[in-house]
Each structure stands twice: as C-alpha cells, then as structure tokens.
C-alpha cells in the first residue's frame, strides 16, 4: 500500500507547491479587492527569470531573479490598474500575452532556437532530519526542496498575519470597504499596490519553482494555465490562506490521481479527476459547498482618483 500512497502524496505535494505559492499571492491581491488575471504571465515571467538567474548564479540567484521578474510584471499591472485606472481584466489579459511573447522571444534569443538550456542547477531535496524518517508519509512530505517548506510555513504565517497584524487587518478592510479604510486613515492605493507587488513576488517564485524544483529547464508557455488554476484555488480556499493551501493540495491530488488511475488501470476516465476541483470551485461560488464570500470590493471598478 505505502508504495502507492507515498508516491501519490509526494506527487500531490510537488504539483501543489507552485499552485499554492501563486494562489497565496493572488489571495493577497484579491483580499485587497482586485483580481489579477495576468497571474499566468507573472508565473511565466518567474519561470523565465529562474532560468536566467540560475544559469548565471545558481539556484539562489534563480529564485531571486524569478521573484524580481514576477514583481516586474506585477508592477506593470499596478501601473495600469492603480496608476491609470485601466480595467483590471484588460490589463491582466494584455500582461499574460506580453509575458508569453516576451519570455518566448527572450528564451530563443538568449538560449538559441533549440532552446537547450542544459545544465542549469536545480534545487535539491533537503530531507528534514527526524521528520523525513517518519513512516509512510515522512519521505513524501519532508524530503522535498526547500521551497516546499517555504509553503508549509507561508500559509499559516499569512493566516496569522491577516488575523493578527494591523497590516493584515488593513488589507482586509481595503478589499471589503475601501471608503472605510480611507476614513480610518489608510492609503488605499498604496496598500493595493503593495498587495499586487507581493502577489507578483509569490507568483514569480511559483514560476521559479517550476523550473528549479520540478522541470529543471524552461519551456515556452510552461506555466500551462497554472495562473488561472491559482485563481480557482483562491475561490475554493474561500480567500483564506489555509483554505488556499488545502485547495492547492486538492488540485495537486487531482492531478496525481490522474496518473495513479492510469497506472493502476482504473476504469474511470482520468479527466474526471482533473475536472472535479473546477466543478467543486463552481459549486463553491454558487454557494452549494459552504459559503464562499468574496471580498466585497472584488470585481468593482476602482473609485476615481482624487
């Protein structure tokens, strides 16, 4: 049994980590009352940044450049949406397109048409002492690359931050009722900009994870819809960090189950596993599965600048 379960859990966690990172970033943006559907572009930029950074200066540099690339794309989004009061959907769409084009072009320009960026260093697994030696799930959960441990820490840390700091409270208030936040002396535009940039940083790291801890290389369009999946996860996680972590695991499990079912020759169509989380998300949206309450300002046009 454990020879099936442990690899399954390991695969679940592996798929879930970049999703969780991106979704936690998007969570911050959405809790501020905005939606960045350019997240796909952010992740892709992060992935490409990781490639550039890692080939120049190793894994740490890879993650650093990934983060910077994510922040850069997010900054363009912030400029359009906060600075110019452009529509969020349009700006997000344009950014994804820009990122797809720019990373693809730069990739081929810098690394040749065959694109073989061979030999970039990857993030090795660091089995945690004691924990990884636990029976059954120890090695699946605790013999992972460091970025996985980052997620283990980040989700509860963000949950704590949202609930127990004034900054977290301010972020929530901005997403619920910007007028109230303003009257309380908060600078709404600034808080939203910071949230977008932070979301970009996490999205960038998510992209970096794909390259440095999973694929070991970059491929054009390798984000493969993860930005959109992350948006779904935020909804499924009901806009809470721990919920988002759970949602990411669910999507990870669905993807792992797909392979498991094929490997074990189950009769069920594997697409069922792939689709289940989306259906669940739609049901959550419709209020069928618990009450998913979006931040009240989400999806509303920004108030004009003063």
């Amino acid at each position: 049994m454990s020879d099936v379960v442990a690899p399954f859990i390991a695969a679940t966690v592996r798929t879930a980590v970049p999703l969780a990172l991106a979704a936690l970033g998007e969570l911050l943006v959405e809790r501020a009352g905005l939606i960045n559907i350019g997240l796909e572009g952010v992740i892709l930029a992060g992935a490409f940044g990781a490639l550039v950074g890692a080939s120049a200066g190793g894994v740490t540099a890879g993650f650093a450049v990934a983060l910077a690339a994510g922040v850069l794309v997010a900054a363009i989004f912030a400029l359009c949406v906060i600075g110019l009061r452009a529509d969020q959907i349009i700006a997000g769409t344009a950014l994804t397109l820009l990122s797809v084009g720019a990373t693809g072009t730069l990739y081929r320009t810098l690394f040749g048409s065959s694109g073989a960026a061979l030999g970039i260093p990857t993030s090795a697994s660091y089995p945690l002492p004691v924990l990884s030696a636990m029976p059954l799930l120890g090695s699946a959960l605790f013999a992972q690359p460091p970025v996985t441990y980052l997620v283990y820490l980040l989700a509860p840390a963000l949950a704590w931050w949202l609930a127990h700091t004034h900054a977290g409270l301010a972020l929530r208030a901005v997403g619920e009722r910007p007028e109230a936040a303003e009257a309380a002396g908060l600078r709404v535009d600034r808080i939203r900009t910071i949230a977008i940039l932070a979301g970009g940083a996490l999205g960038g790291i998510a992209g970096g994870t794909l390259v440095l801890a999973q694929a070991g290389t970059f491929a054009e369009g390798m984000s493969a819809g993860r930005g959109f999946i992350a948006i779904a996860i935020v909804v499924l996680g009901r806009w809470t960090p721990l919920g988002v972590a759970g949602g990411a695991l669910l999507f990870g499990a669905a993807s792992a189950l797909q392979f498991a079912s094929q490997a074990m020759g189950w009769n069920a169509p594997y697409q069922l596993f792939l689709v289940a989380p989306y259906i669940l998300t739609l049901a959550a949206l419709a209020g069928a599965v618990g009450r998913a309450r979006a931040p009240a300002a989400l999806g509303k046009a920004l108030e004009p600048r003063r």
Partner: protein
Amino acid sequence: MTASPAHHTGSALALENVRKHFGSFVALDDATFEVRAGTVHALLGENGAGKTTLMRIVYGLVHADACTMRIDGMPATVANPSDAIARGIGMVHQHFTLVPVMSVVENIALGSRGRLNVAQVAKRVVEIAARTGFSLDPWARVESLSIGAQQRVEITKALARNARTLILDEPTAVLAPAESTALLRWLRSYADAGNTVVLITHKLHEALAVADDVTVLRRGRTVLAQPAATTSIAALSDAMLGSGAERTGVNGVASMTGRSARTHRENAAIVFRAERLSLIDATGVVRVREASFDIWAGEIVGVAGIEGSGQRELLRALAGRIAPSSGKMIRPADVGFIPEDRHRDAVLLDRDLSENVALRGAGIRRGVIDWTSVRADTRSLLQRYDVRAPDSRTMLRALSGGNQQKLVVARELRTAENGQHHAIVAENPTRGLDVRATAGIHARLYRASEAGAAVVMYSNDIDEVLLLATRVLVTRGGTVHEVPLDREAIGRAMLGTS
C-alpha cells in the same frame, strides 16, 4: 487636554477663508468656522449648504481650494484622515465607515500599526464603554448590529484614537427618538468633560437644546455664528433659509412672479393619485407611511423635506421607479424623470448626445432605430434648450455639468411640451448649476406646466420651491402634508418646529 472645569477658553478648531468648488459648483465660498474648546457646537444649514464638505475638509477627506486652519490654536494642515486623527479629531459620518463583515474590535483597531492584539483592543472597548456608558459587544460582527449600535461603534472608534474633538454628521437622522435623546445627552457630558463636539444637523430644536454655540451656513457662506443662548428658532430658520429680501435676488424667472396666486384649473384632470401609499427603501426601511394626495394637470407641486424624510422614495414612486409596498398609486405610464444624481441615473457619459436622447424609452423600443431622425431631433433639442455643444455626436462627458443637465431636462420634458404626456418628476433639477442654467431650467418646468403637464419638483432649496410651486407638499418622518405657500410654514413643517 485633561478634563477641567475651566473650559470655554481656547479655540479647538478655527477655519477661515474656506473655498471649495466641484466643477462649476461652488460648495464653499469663503466660509469661516470657529469652535471653542469644551463646547458643543451646532453646524446648521440646508442640504447642500456646505456643512458636510466643510467638515470633510477638516477631516482630510476633501482638499479645499483655499483654507486657513488652526487646531487647538496651532496652524495646521490636514492632508488626509490620518493627519486629522493624529491631531485628535474624530468624525462620525452620516453613512458609517465601518466594515460590515468585521467585528467591533477589528473595526476599532483599523488604521493602527504593528501586531494586532484583539484582546487588548477589546479591553480598550470595554474600558471606553465603561466611561461612556455605551453597551457594546466587542466581538459582535458590525453587520449584525442595529444602526444605533453601529453609531456607538463609530464613536468608540474615534475615542479609541484619543479624539478630543468629535465631529458628528446628522447623527440623529438614523436614530429613534429615545436613542437621539440619549446620544445628545451623552454628547453634552462628553463636552462637559473638556472635549469638543461639532454637531452637523438641520434640526433646530436639537441644536438649541444641546449646543453652546451655533454656526449657520447658507450656499457655502457663514451667515450666522453666535452663542445658542442669544438666538432663537425663528432667527436660525431665517438664517438657514434666507430672508425675504434675499429671496427675490435669486429669482431667475421674472415672468413667474405672482404665480402663487394661481390655483389649479377648473376641471383639470387628476394625473397622480396616492391612496394610503407606503414605500420602503432598498434596505427595507419604511420611508413613506400611508400618504394620500392628488396632483392635477397644470400644477407645479413643490416637495420640501429634509434628507431622509421620505422625499426621495416619494419622488421615485411618482416616477414609477419604485413600487408601493402598500396602498395605491395611480400614475401615467410614462413620466419624465430628472434624477438628482444624473451621472449615475440619467446619462451615459461615454456615449454621444443623440444616444443619450435615445436612452429614454430604450427599454420598450423595438426594431430598428432611425439614427438620422434621432440626430435631427437631438440637434433641435440642443437648439431649443440652449445646450452648448458642438453637435449631436459630441460625447456627453465633454459637456459642462450645466449643459449635461439641460440635455437631460430637454429629453425628459420634450414630450410634455408637445402635450404628448403629462407628468414630470424632478429632483434637485438645478443642483450644481449656475444662475443662467438654473433660470433656463425653471422656465422649462414652468412652460411644461403651462402646456398642461403635472410637474412635481423636489428641491433642497426652499426658495426654489417657493419660486416655482403652485402647491407644496412637505415630507417629514415618512408623512406627507400639504402646507401653505409660505416660507415660515414650510420651514416649520420641514424642521418640525411647529
């Protein structure tokens, strides 16, 4: 500033030369305002007189075009609410600025820095509650609280930030009488402890009952500032509504003088009939209770009433925009409606003028629209109604506020002038317009009534009501009464000073 019996000394807040305009609308025109420390100061004025704007400037939510401000005697600039809070000023807005899904504690903590210790904040809430006598559950969600309790949260929020000067915008408008009395009593004791209160209101008896000093604004200017003890309801009412001498000065349509003598015509048709009409607003609050009245063809019925007295809902029911919750309303199928907030309710800012003309009736139109004729029609409306615009293809956004409003009036009135339909409902139709534009719109409404339309017009400005109306209905606390065409009588009926 500790509680000291020797208050009534320094000035807590002083404003001079305050000017503020929104587009072409002058909200504040060289207003002055001074509040002595340790007093309750009532700031009076009609709707639109500039009271709220003045206080939003103090709180940093609106930036004045010009303003000299002193807080506690020291020159001060307030760029945003956090500056105001740092200087000990707290504001309780008419529309509360609370986050409904959050707890009382979270709402009160909002705006600070560092670690959020909810237990500590809760302790502070309890502590303030002990001092103020407010009973508040610190852990309750704000949306589950009554309006009165939400107001206490707002006050507690200001006190938690050590506010020494508390500004309250129409605080009793949302409260039941017993709650109002309790609140006013509390404000008095708060000031007696050495703090300062600015009470924005249009309820005169309230002002005189609780305030040490009163200031009256009219059309953005300070027209009266004196101790409450030395004034009277009659004097305040005159100051708020303007004296008879001034009234003639704003008269834009000379030909209309003497119209108050006009009575409704013999055998005129009844256009609107309300029978025990009750109306509720979007939040489910009863706004008009069992009102009965008739409105005939050829009249201009002026509606007067303070904010929240039911006038808004009454106008919308007459215009067919909301349905009665009980009772009966007989009205024509097609009523011209000139809403107060034209940007939200009347126009498409980024479409051209002919499209804005075509908007009326868009819900029932079928088939093909003949734009050539709509454009020709629009051009003729622009000409006849003196709308200053290059042509019918201009985007509405590019027009000045006055010209936008003229287009709305033209669109809603046109069929009435042709005698095709017979009813117009207008809500503050000249708000924010200059004298010329105002006079033009007055003339249009008058002409429509002459052509046989029933015109119902609400205005914040009693002068405007008196100028145009052949009859006046006053709304107060959900009741609707006919009142003689007399300034004092209307004022008394509106403000409840009879």
